[in-house]
């Protein structure tokens, strides 16, 4: 390829811009969305419709004193927020935004994504541990048990998808679903049988909310219990990076859901597919996540774990078996 030097640069810039804009403006969306739900305007004085609010927050966070409290593990304390941020951005590399917009179409991209997602959990663990704050340590212990529990059903549902598509390449999985919403994995027919993949979709969506530590599963930063959880000791951009990492994880989760279940960049009505359909789908999913957050109270740690170990994992196991049976037997 002659453009080999420009291609990575363009994608690097593109992904960084996409990540940056999303990380900044999802915060704004969340605040505006919360305002909408709560019958108030939300940020609106800083710039038109409050659009400059993320900029102001960014400037403030970046120029605030970066406090490293006494008694913390200095290196890990400083590195943890970066670790939270990097995997989220790296994940974008393998996400197919449309048929021809994808930085790298790796064969095992699904696996890579899950490997990177686990790193985000390690960032929380390290951040909480290095802070040396009791609340932070409780929070990181919670985060680890939660992420462990929810990765299993998540992977199991993905296995079902992989079996249907016969590929671990996100691009192939998406291409497999082209041609209108009745081809999407969520409404999948195989050999004349309906596959009940919507069960898998619900499990996957619940897990992705839990994996990103969002309410009602925000055990790790449960404000009324653990002050600010693993972020308690982080000030300035350390905190900012954690926040951005959280939003990016939501974006990655939404991208993954859209690709695996909702046909990726496919048009629901079988018309011209394109990147805008993909963006529309992920923002609908992201809005749902925000909506859920501002509607439900927080659940309890043991209920959260029970939900995963006692309900989601058996269901996803059954899901895998049933899917296999439909594909192979019928």
């Amino acid at each position: 390829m002659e453009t080999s030097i420009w291609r990575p640069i363009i994608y690097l810039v593109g992904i960084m811009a996409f990540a940056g804009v999303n990380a900044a403006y999802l915060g704004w969306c969340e605040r505006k969305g919360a305002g909408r739900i709560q019958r108030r305007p939300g940020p609106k004085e800083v710039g038109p419709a409050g659009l400059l609010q993320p900029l102001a927050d960014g400037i403030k966070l970046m120029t605030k004193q970066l406090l490293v409290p006494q008694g913390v593990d200095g290196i890990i304390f400083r590195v943890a927020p970066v670790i939270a941020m990097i995997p989220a951005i790296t994940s974008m590399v393998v996400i197919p935004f449309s048929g021809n917009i994808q930085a790298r179409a790796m064969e095992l991209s699904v696996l890579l994504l899950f490997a990177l997602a686990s790193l985000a959990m390690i960032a929380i663990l390290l951040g909480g541990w290095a802070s040396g704050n009791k609340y932070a340590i409780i929070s990181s212990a919670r985060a680890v048990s939660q992420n462990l529990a929810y990765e299993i059903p998540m992977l199991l549902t993905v296995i079902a998808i992989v079996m249907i598509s016969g590929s671990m390449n996100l691009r192939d999985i998406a291409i497999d679903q082209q041609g209108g919403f009745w081809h999407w994995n969520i409404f999948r027919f195989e050999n004349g049988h309906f596959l009940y993949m919507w069960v898998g979709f619900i499990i996957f969506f619940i897990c992705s909310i839990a994996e990103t530590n969002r309410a009602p599963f925000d055990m790790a930063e449960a404000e009324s219990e653990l002050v600010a959880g693993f972020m308690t000791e982080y000030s300035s951009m350390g905190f900012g990076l954690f926040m951005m990492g959280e939003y990016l994880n939501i974006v990655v989760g939404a991208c993954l859901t859209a690709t695996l279940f909702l046909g990726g960049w496919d048009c629901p009505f079988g018309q011209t597919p394109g990147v805008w359909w993909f963006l529309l789908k992920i923002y609908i999913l992201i809005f749902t996540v925000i909506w859920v957050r501002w509607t439900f109270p927080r659940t309890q740690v043991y209920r959260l774990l029970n939900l995963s170990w006692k309900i989601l994992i058996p269901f996803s196991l059954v899901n895998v078996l049933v899917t296999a049976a439909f594909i192979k037997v019928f």
Partner: protein
Amino acid sequence: MEPENVPSSIVQFSQLDKLLSLGRANSLWPMTFGLACCAIEMMCTGGSRYDIARFGAEVFRPSPRQSDVMIVAGTINKKLEEAVKTLYDQMPEPKWVIAMGNCAISGGPFKVKENYNVVEGADQLFPVDVYIPGCPPRPEALLEGIMSLEEKITGKRRWPRV
């Protein structure tokens, strides 16, 4: 009110400084720190009717590390004194303090000659930037206090004074 005469710093980045102060003034995150009656009015300010979110100041952070402004909403007493000082010290620079209500200004109704337990004003513990009188001040007064603080940071007032 005349614009305050802020002493200039040694190294000046005039335009950048303006940008920074604009950013800071428009993103004042208060600490979740209610002491007494005034805290209820502080909560009301976050409510739908007054909506402190309009100014981007609704992000009440429970940890002092992430907050920019400490709203001392209530009475500080001798037992709490140390805790409040610690919280102030835990906040990273730049930080501001709003003394909300008479108790935080001077001890308010508890500044009596029998006073054995109440600290007579938050400014005895640390510097205070904005004083909001009232017992308790109305939510509008807190919004005005936030705007006064913005004015103090940027030198410009968001809206003309009424």
